[in-house]
């Protein structure tokens, strides 16, 4: 409590001071992210020193570890950061729309829609059809499930709390179908699907990075155009209407961004749970709830979380390469419980 009041007090200063503070925090996070990239690049099953990694980055032709650095580690690290950022922003948007700190892409059914589509794809085509189509399948699953949630919770408009409940119900059904597919497929395929569900960045390639990047480049600026509306909506529907916000249109734009980001993240890295839940909270602690400041900070925090989770998965249990999702939930779930405990008097 002490901590947050002191933040609030500082937050009461002029807009310029707040701006400077959040810029400073963003810079710090960015530096931390760069340092973590360096650390992650130099650690792995094949020992490489930081100096040699730098050398290889600068002159790929003259280095004997260029393949490890450029083709194995770097795409994986970049993809981890992009996925983390996408999930974090998606969660920040959802929490803002629903006005509930417990909402996240996993809770309202986007993740499970993508998971169901991906597991269906794995079960139907196995390794036969090109694995490159898996992200497309997952993404269309995410979009379809989001549409379904929208459609089913429509009743003279969209009430956020109804949307959450409908999402929970739908994700239970889609989870059941996913389970069914896993149980009925053979053991090896089931394990592949299971690892995918947990969220893994194993064998990420530049192609994946290129597939992921456009979604962030489009969705994040688009959701930032709605920042003022989002801040108005945080004060309640009546206030937002009074301030001239077109509630339905803003919610539609924001939801589309959120679904696209979460869908793309799940498509390329599987069901990483809890990032979308906890990253926005950490960001809000750092820079407050103003949406324009929250989004970039949340993106950086999310990138850091997934980067470290993947690093742990790669190096902590050598020679095993464990899915990053295990570590994200290992840290995320207890943090979430703490969060729930702390916020239980504000509803």
């Amino acid at each position, binding site marked *: 409590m002490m901590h947050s009041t002191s933040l609030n007090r500082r937050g009461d200063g002029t807009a310029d001071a707040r701006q400077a503070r959040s810029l400073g925090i963003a810079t710090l996070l960015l530096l931390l992210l760069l340092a973590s990239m360096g650390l992650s690049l130099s650690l792995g099953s094949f020992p490489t020193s930081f100096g040699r990694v730098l050398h290889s980055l600068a002159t790929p032709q003259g280095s004997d570890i260029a393949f490890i650095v450029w083709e194995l580690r770097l795409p994986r690290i970049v993809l981890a950061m992009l996925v983390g950022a996408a999930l974090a922003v998606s969660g920040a948007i959802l929490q803002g729309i629903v006005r*509930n700190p*417990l*909402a996240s892409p*996993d*809770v309202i059914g986007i993740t499970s829609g993508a998971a169901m589509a991906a597991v269906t794809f794995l079960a139907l085509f196995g390794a036969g059809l090109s694995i490159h189509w898996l992200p497309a399948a997952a993404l269309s699953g995410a979009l379809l499930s989001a549409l379904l949630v929208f459609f*089913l*919770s429509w*009743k003279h408009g969209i*009430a*956020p*709390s*109804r949307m*959450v*409940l*409908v999402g*929970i*119900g*739908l994700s*239970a*059904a889609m*989870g*059941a*179908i996913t*389970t*069914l597919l*896993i*149980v*009925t497929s053979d*053991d090896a395929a*089931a*394990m592949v699907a*299971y*690892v995918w*569900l*947990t969220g893994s960045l194993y064998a990420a390639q530049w192609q994946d990075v290129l597939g992921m990047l456009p979604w962030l480049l489009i969705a994040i600026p688009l959701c930032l155009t709605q920042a003022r509306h989002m801040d108005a909506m945080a004060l309640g529907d009546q206030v937002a209407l009074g301030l001239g916000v077109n509630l339905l249109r803003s919610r539609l734009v924001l939801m589309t961004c959120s679904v696209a980001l979460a869908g793309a993240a799940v498509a390329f890295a599987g069901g990483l*749970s*809890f990032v979308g*839940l906890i990253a926005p909270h950490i960001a809000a602690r750092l820079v407050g709830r103003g949406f324009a400041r929250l989004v970039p900070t949340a993106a950086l925090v999310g990138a850091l979380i997934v980067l470290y989770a993947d690093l742990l998965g790669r190096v902590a*249990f050598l020679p*095993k390469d*464990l*899915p990053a*999702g*295990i570590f994200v*939930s*290992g840290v995320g*779930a207890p943090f*979430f*419980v703490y969060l*729930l*405990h702390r916020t*239980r*008097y504000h*509803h």
Partner: protein
Amino acid sequence: MLSSRLSRCLGLFLSMALVAVAFMASVMLGTTDIALPTFIDALIHYDPARVAHIIVLTERLPRAVIAVLVGASLAIAGALMQTMTRNPLASPSILGINAGAMFFVVVAVSLLPLHAPVDYVWAALLGAFVAACLVVMLSRGRQGELAPLRVVLAGVAITAMFVSFSQGLLIIDQQSFESVLYWLAGSVSGRELSLVVPLLPLFGGALLLCALLVRHANALMLGDDMVKGLGMRAGTIKLLLGLVVILLAGSSVALAGMIGFVGLIVPHMARGIFGVDHRWLLPACALLGASLLLLADVASRFLMAPQDIPVGVMTALIGTPFFIHLARRKPA
């Protein structure tokens, strides 16, 4: 809704008949159909040389008995949870009790040297207890009231937590994966009757406690002050009812894994037919829950024949439209 005592008695009688019919269907229908005389013959003069007899005693009968026990327990647990939280969406699967029980079983299987199904029971009960404590602790407001959306979100997140921990453990320890996979999906098949026997005292104790507390549960529905009028503290009643829920849900998970939505749908159906009085509601829940799970299990044999699909999948598919209907009806 049935209002007179006579019509309610008749309703309960019809529900009993439904359970009996569903039970017989569960025993007789499947990839090999068993005729009624063969079934009776197998019970009275068991002949291990006859395949039909072996099917009845080792596969069909245990399956039907477990479906009855689990369906009834989950429905009663759901009804009690809905009363205690005054939330129509409460049920053991939504609030994370089932997931907690599952996680502890996965821990027992993969980390501890516990492989006998009997050991699952204690793990499952402990898990149900831990999850219940977490949900209650995390979703109470300042006055101890449980805000509906918050309770549901807390439950879903706790489910997500336990499920992802279990996934992690299963990926690290892949040997256990195959053995618990089917069980995780929620299934009443492939269990032996001997597994049920050590659980009977638990089910019996929970039901007895439940029967003793029926009046208090009725009072609890009207408000905590009414419970005081009966000379007991509301906290004590909730604690005891919570114990009943944990016993019923935990033993169900130990027997059949994650079976969702039975605890959600059945209490609403029973309330629609028999009203809110727990003296009628709870027996009705037990009977309707048993029939629902029996019928879902029979259907699961034919949906993708010859492959059995886990009955947990069936109940989730049946339950989702219902859950969404409830969510839409609830004033936002």
